[in-house]
C-alpha cells in the first residue's frame, strides 16, 4: 500500500539531484555552446572531497560549503586555462578538451582514493526517519530534496532578479549582442562555468551519503543528465526541470514495476522525444 | 488563371518569423524563358522570397507552383533535382576546394553520381565535359585548379554563378549577383549572366537599376512584404508608386 508514495518520493529526490547536475550543464551549453563532458566528473569530485572533508573535520555541513567552493575555483581554472585556449579551434576541440579533463579527473580519483566504493557515514539527525502522514521516510532523502529545491530557488532568484542574472540569460540568447553592450563576456563565461561546476559538486556532496561514492559514479549520472537535457531541450532550464522530474520518476517507478527494463525505458523515452521533436521538448526548432 | 507557359507561380505567400511579418501575400508569375527581376528597398523581403522558392524556408501560408506542381515546403535537394537552382548573396561555395571541384560537385550530382562507393567524381566523361563547359562559359577555365578562397572577388562571384548552373537548372534564381562589384566588373557580369541564362528562366534580385533595365523582360517591385507592381521595365521606370517607395526609403 505504502509503496507508491515512497517510490514517488524517491523519484522526486533523484529528480532534484538530476536537476542540480543538468541545470549547470544546460546553462553552460546555452551560454557558451559547449557541452561540458567534465561536468559529471565535477559531481564525482564533490562526493570524494566531501568524503575526505568529513573524515577530517567530522562535520557534514561544512562539506556543503567547502566542496562547492573548491569546485567553483577548479571550474574557473579549467575554463580559463584549458577551454578558452581551444575555443578558436571550434566545437570539436572544446568537447575534446572537456573530455580530456573528465578522463584525468576519473583517473586521479582512482589514484588518490582507490578504485573501489567508499561509504560516507553520517550521524545524528540526518540518519533518522520521519513520519510523513503515516509514512516513515528517511530524513536524509528529504534533506536532499529540500537542498535541491533551495538551490534551484536561489538560482532562479539570481537569474531573474539580479543584473548578473540578466546578463547571463541575455548571453544564452545572444552572446554577440551582450558583447556589443560592453559586458566583459569572457569573465561572465568563466564565472558561469565555475558556478556550474559548483552546482555539480554540491550535487555530488549530497549524493555521496545516499548513492555509492565510486569512480564510475560520474559516468552513471552523466548519461542520465544528458538524457535530461536531450529530452528537455539543450539550453533550456525549464526543460531541465520537466525532464529531470520525468527521468527521476521513470527511474524510480521503472525500478518498482519493470526492474529489468528501467534503463531501457529511459532510452525509449529519449528515442520517442527525438523522433517527435528532435530538438527536445523545450528546445528551439532548427 | 494558369497559363500554359507559366513556369512558376507564387500565390499569396505569407511568411512570418515568430511574429515578425516579412512577406504579406506575395503574388507573381514567371513565364518560361522570361528574365524576371525582383527589386525593392532593403528589408522588403526579397531574399526571404528566394529562400521560400528554393526550399530553405517553408511559407507560413500560400503556395509555390512550379511547372503546374505545388512545391511549397519541399526540401532544397528535391527542388534542385526538379531543376530549380539558386545562388547566394554572400558567396557560398566550397572555399577549401579548387574551382573545378566546386563545379563538379553539382554536375556529378545532376548525373546521379552522389553516393557511389566505387566510382570517383572524375570517372564519368560526361561529367568532366559538362564541368569544363560551365567553366568556359563563366570564364573560369584558366583558374580551375585554384582554390576558391584564393580567387579574386569578381572570380568568386563568377564561381557562385557557375556552381548555381552546375545542376543544369531550368529555373535560375540569382540573389544580387553583382553586389559589391565595380562598375566595370558589373558590366562584364551582366554580359556573362545574359549569356549563361539564354533559353532558361531567370529570376534575379538586383539593386543596380542599370542591371535590371538591361537584363530583365519583366520587373516586380517588392515593397513591405508584397508585390507593389509587376510590369515591363518601361512601366516600372515611370510608375509613381515605385518612385514613392524608393524615395520613402531614402528619406529614412
Amino acid at each position: 500500500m505504502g509503496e507508491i508514495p515512497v517510490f514517488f518520493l524517491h523519484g522526486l529526490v533523484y529528480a532534484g539531484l538530476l536537476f542540480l547536475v543538468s541545470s549547470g550543464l544546460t546553462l553552460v551549453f546555452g551560454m557558451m555552446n559547449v557541452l561540458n563532458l567534465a561536468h559529471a566528473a565535477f559531481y564525482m569530485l564533490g562526493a570524494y572531497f566531501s568524503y575526505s572533508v568529513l573524515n577530517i573535520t567530522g562535520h557534514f555541513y561544512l562539506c556543503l560549503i567547502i566542496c562547492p567552493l573548491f569546485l567553483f575555483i577548479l571550474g574557473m581554472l579549467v575554463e580559463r586555462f584549458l577551454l578558452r585556449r581551444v575555443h578558436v579551434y571550434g566545437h570539436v576541440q572544446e568537447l575534446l578538451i572537456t573530455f580530456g579533463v573528465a578522463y584525468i579527473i576519473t583517473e586521479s580519483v582512482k589514484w588518490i582514493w582507490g578504485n573501489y566504493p567508499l561509504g560516507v557515514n553520517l550521524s545524528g539527525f540526518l540518519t533518522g526517519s520521519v513520519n510523513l502522514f503515516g509514512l516513515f521516510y528517511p530524513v536524509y532523502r528529504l534533506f536532499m530534496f529540500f537542498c535541491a529545491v533551495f538551490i534551484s530557488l536561489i538560482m532562479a532568484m539570481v537569474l531573474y532578479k539580479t543584473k548578473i542574472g540578466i546578463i547571463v540569460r541575455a548571453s544564452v540568447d545572444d552572446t554577440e549582442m551582450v558583447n556589443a553592450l560592453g559586458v566583459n563576456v569572457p569573465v561572465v563565461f568563466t564565472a558561469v562555468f565555475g558556478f556550474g561546476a559548483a552546482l555539480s559538486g554540491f550535487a555530488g556532496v549530497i549524493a555521496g551519503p545516499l548513492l555509492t561514492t565510486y569512480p564510475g559514479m560520474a559516468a552513471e549520472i552523466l548519461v542520465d543528465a544528458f538524457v535530461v537535457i536531450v529530452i528537455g531541450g539543450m539550453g533550456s532550464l525549464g526543460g531541465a526541470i520537466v525532464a529531470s522530474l520525468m527521468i527521476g520518476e521513470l527511474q524510480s517507478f521503472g525500478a518498482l514495476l519493470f526492474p529489468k527494463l528501467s534503463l531501457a525505458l529511459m532510452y525509449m523515452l529519449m528515442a520517442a522525444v527525438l523522433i517527435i521533436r528532435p530538438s527536445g521538448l523545450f528546445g528551439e526548432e532548427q | 488563371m494558369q497559363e500554359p507557359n507559366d513556369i512558376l507561380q507564387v500565390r499569396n505567400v505569407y511568411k512570418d518569423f515568430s511574429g515578425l511579418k516579412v512577406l504579406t501575400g506575395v503574388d507573381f508569375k514567371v513565364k518560361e524563358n522570361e528574365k524576371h527581376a525582383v527589386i525593392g528597398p532593403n528589408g522588403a523581403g526579397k531574399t526571404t522570397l528566394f529562400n521560400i522558392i528554393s526550399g530553405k524556408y517553408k511559407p507560413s501560408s500560400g503556395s509555390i507552383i512550379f511547372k503546374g506542381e505545388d512545391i511549397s515546403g519541399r526540401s532544397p535537394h528535391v527542388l534542385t533535382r526538379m531543376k530549380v537552382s539558386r545562388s547566394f548573396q554572400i558567396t557560398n561555395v566550397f572555399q577549401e576546394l579548387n574551382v573545378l571541384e566546386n563545379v563538379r560537385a553539382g554536375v556529378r550530382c545532376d548525373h546521379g553520381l552522389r553516393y557511389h562507393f566505387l566510382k570517383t567524381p572524375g570517372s564519368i566523361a560526361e561529367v568532366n565535359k559538362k564541368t569544363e563547359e560551365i567553366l568556359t562559359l563563366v570564364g573560369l577555365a584558366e583558374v580551375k585548379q585554384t582554390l576558391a578562397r584564393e580567387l579574386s572577388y569578381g572570380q568568386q562571384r563568377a564561381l557562385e554563378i557557375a556552381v548555381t548552373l552546375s545542376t543544369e537548372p531550368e529555373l535560375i534564381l540569382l540573389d544580387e549577383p553583382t553586389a559589391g562589384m565595380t562598375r566595370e566588373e558589373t558590366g562584364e557580369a551582366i554580359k556573362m549572366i545574359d549569356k549563361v541564362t539564354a533559353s532558361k528562366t531567370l529570376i534575379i534580385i538586383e539593386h543596380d537599376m542599370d542591371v535590371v533595365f538591361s537584363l530583365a523582360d519583366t520587373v516586380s517591385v517588392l515593397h513591405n512584404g508584397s508585390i507593389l507592381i509587376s510590369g515591363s521595365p518601361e512601366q516600372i521606370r515611370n510608375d509613381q508608386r515605385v518612385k514613392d517607395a524608393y524615395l520613402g526609403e531614402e528619406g529614412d
Partner: protein
Amino acid sequence: MKQRSHASLLAWGTLILVAGVLLPLAVRQYQLAILTEIIIFALFAVSYNLLLGYAGLLSFGHAMFFGTGAYTVAIVINHIPSLSFFGAVILSLSVTTITGLVVGSFLLRHKGTPFALLTLAFNALFYAIATKWHSITGGDDGLSIFRPDINIGFAQLSTSSIPAFYYITFIIIGLVMLFSWYFTRTAMGQTVLLMRENEERMKFLGYNTNVSRLILFVFTGFLAGLAGIFYALFFQFTSITAISIDMSTIVLLMVIIGGTGSFVGPIIGACVYIYLQDFLSDITDRWPFIMGLIFIFMILYVPKGLSGLIYSLIERLRGRRHLSRKVEIAE
C-alpha cells in the same frame, strides 16, 4: 607530379606488403601478437576517423559497433555449430550493419554537439544491454570462443597459431583498409568531405545530406564491426570492455594522437598507442592517467597530431611542396 605520386604510392604499398609478409619470420611471437592487435585497432581507428576527420562528426559511441561485432561473432560461433570462419564473420558483419542502420536513423538529423551526446547515450545503452542480458552475453564474465578453421574447398587452414591468425588479419584487414583509403576518393567519400565544407550548399546542389550521413555512419559502423570481430577472434574472448565507453575513448585517443588530418594518422595513432600502453603498463599502474595527460597535451599543442607533425616536417624538407588535400577539422 601525378605520375610521381602514383609511383611513390606503389613503392609504399610494396614495402608494406613485403614487410607484412616477411615480418613473422623475423620477430618473436609476442611481437607478432602485438602487431596483430595493432592492425585490428588501426582499422578501428581508421573507421573512426572517417567520422571525425572526414565528416567532422565527433562520436563518443564508436565502441557500440566494435562491441556489437565482437559479441555477435562470439555468440554465433558458440550457438551455431560447424559455422565456418567466413560464415561467422559475414553473419556478424550483417548484424553490425543492421545495428548501424537502426542507430543511424535516430542520429542522421544531428551533428555537432547533439550528435556527440547522442552517440554517448547510445553507447551507454549498448553497454547496459551487454551487462544485463546475462544469458546471451555472459554479463561481466564475458564469452570465450574458439577460432573456427578456414575451409577452402580442398583444404582446412588452421587459424589457431599466432602467425596463422596474423596472416589472416594482415590480408583481410589490409584489403579492407585499402578499400577504406579508396573510399575517401570515391564519389561518396568526396560527398562527405564536401558536406563538412559546406552542408547548406550541398543541399542546394541536390544532395540529401541526411542520407549521406546515414550511409557514412553505417559504413564506419561496418568497418568498426569488422575490427571488433577480429578483436574477439584474436583474444578468443569477448568482454564488456569491447562495448564500453572506455573502448570508444581508446579509439578517440588513438585518432587524436595520430592526427585527424590524413588517412594514415589513425594508423600511426593505433601503433603509438598500443606500444605506449604496452610500455607504460609495465612500469606503472597509472598509465591511463599518463594517456590522459598526453591527450590534453596533443589537443592543446599538437592539434594536428603526429601525422600533422610528420607532414609539416616533410613539407619543410621539400621546400613547401603543395599538400592541399587535407582533411583537418576546419571550422
